[in-house]
C-alpha cells in the first residue's frame, strides 16, 4: 500500500519542483526581454532580430504571466492536503 502511494507522491513533488523552476526561469526571461533589445537577445530566443533596438515588452509580459501561473500552481499544490484535493 505504501509503495503504491509513494509513486504519485513523488511525481506530484516532481511536478511542483518543475513548476517552481519554470516560474523562476520565466520571470528571469521576462526581465531579460524588458532590459535587452531584440538584437542583444540570445539567438534562440523568440523575437531575436539581429541589430534590432526594439524591446519586446509584450514577450516579457507573456513570460511573466506564464511564470506567475506556475507560481500559483505551486502555491495551491503545496497547500494543506484537504484543500489541494478540492482544487
Amino acid at each position: 500500500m505504501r509503495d503504491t502511494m509513494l509513486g504519485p507522491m513523488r511525481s506530484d513533488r516532481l511536478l511542483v519542483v518543475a513548476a517552481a523552476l519554470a516560474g523562476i526561469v520565466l520571470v528571469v526571461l521576462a526581465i531579460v526581454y524588458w532590459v535587452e533589445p531584440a538584437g542583444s537577445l540570445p539567438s534562440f530566443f523568440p523575437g531575436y532580430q539581429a541589430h534590432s533596438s526594439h524591446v519586446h515588452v509584450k514577450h516579457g509580459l507573456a513570460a511573466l504571466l506564464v511564470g506567475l501561473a506556475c507560481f500559483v500552481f505551486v502555491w495551491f499544490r503545496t497547500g494543506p492536503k484537504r484543500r489541494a484535493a478540492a482544487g
Partner: protein
Amino acid sequence: MILAALISYPRAVVLGLVQGVAEPFPISSLGHAVILPRLLGWNIHQNDPYFVAFLVATHLATALVLLAFFRRDWVRILRGLGRSLRDRGIDPEDTDARLGWLLVVGTIPAGILGLLLQDKLRSVFASASSAAAFLIANGVLLLAAEQLRRRAPQTDDDDDVRIARQVGWPQAFIVGASQALALIPGFSRAGATMAGSLFVGLSNRDAARFAFLLATPIIGAAALLKLPELLGSEGNGVRGPALAAALCAAATSYLAVRFLMRFFESRTLVPFALYCLAAGVGSSIYLAVS
C-alpha cells in the same frame, strides 16, 4: 490640422457607436472597424498608427462599461480569488472562487496569444476584403455552435453557480484561447467564446455572461497596454475625436450588454449568424465590384 482631419468628429461618433454595439454583439467589432471605413469611402486603415490609438479609447470605454455592468460579480469573484489564495485551495462550495479561477485559466491563453500574435495577424489580415470573408466564417461558426451545441440540463441555480459547475478547467482554457480568433478582423471575440461555451453545455444566457466576464480583463488590458500610443505622439490630433467616440461607445455598449443579457434568456445566436453571413457576403460583393 492635417491630423485632425484624419478622423472628423462625425466619423468618430459613427465609429464609436458601431464599436460599442459590435464589441459585445458576436459580430466582430474589429471587422466592422476595418470594413465600414472602406464601404463609406473613408481614408482610414486599421494599421494606421493614429487609428490604432483612436481604437484604444473605444476599447477602454467598452471594458469600463463591462466592468461597471458586472461590478457586483467582479467584487464577489475577486473576494473568491482572495479566499482561495489564502486557503491555498478552492473550496468545492465556493463558486465565486471557482468562477474566478476559470476566468484566470481562460484569460491566460488569450492574453499570451494576443500579446504574441496581435501585431502579426493584424498586418496580415488588414484588408477589408479579408475581414468580409472572415465575417462570413464568423457567421458559419455561430451557426455551427447552435447546431452542434451540447444541451446540458439547466438548473435553477444562480447564473455563476451554473457556469462554475458546467465549465471544467480544460474547457475554460479552450474557450479562453478561442478569444484569440478575434485577433483576425471579422471573427468575433464574443462569438468565439459564446460558441465555445455552447459546446461545453452552457445555455445562451450563461454563455453570454461567461463571454462578457472573460472579455473584460482582456479588452481592458489590451487597451491599457496601448494607452501610451493614444497619449503619445500617435494620438496627436485624434484625442478629441477619440474621446467623443469613447463616450458613444460607452453608451451603446451599455445598451448592447443590457439588451443581450435579456435577449439570450430565450433566443439564440442564429440572428447574429445570419447578419454576419449577409454583411460578409454583401461587403465582399461590394468590395469586389467597386
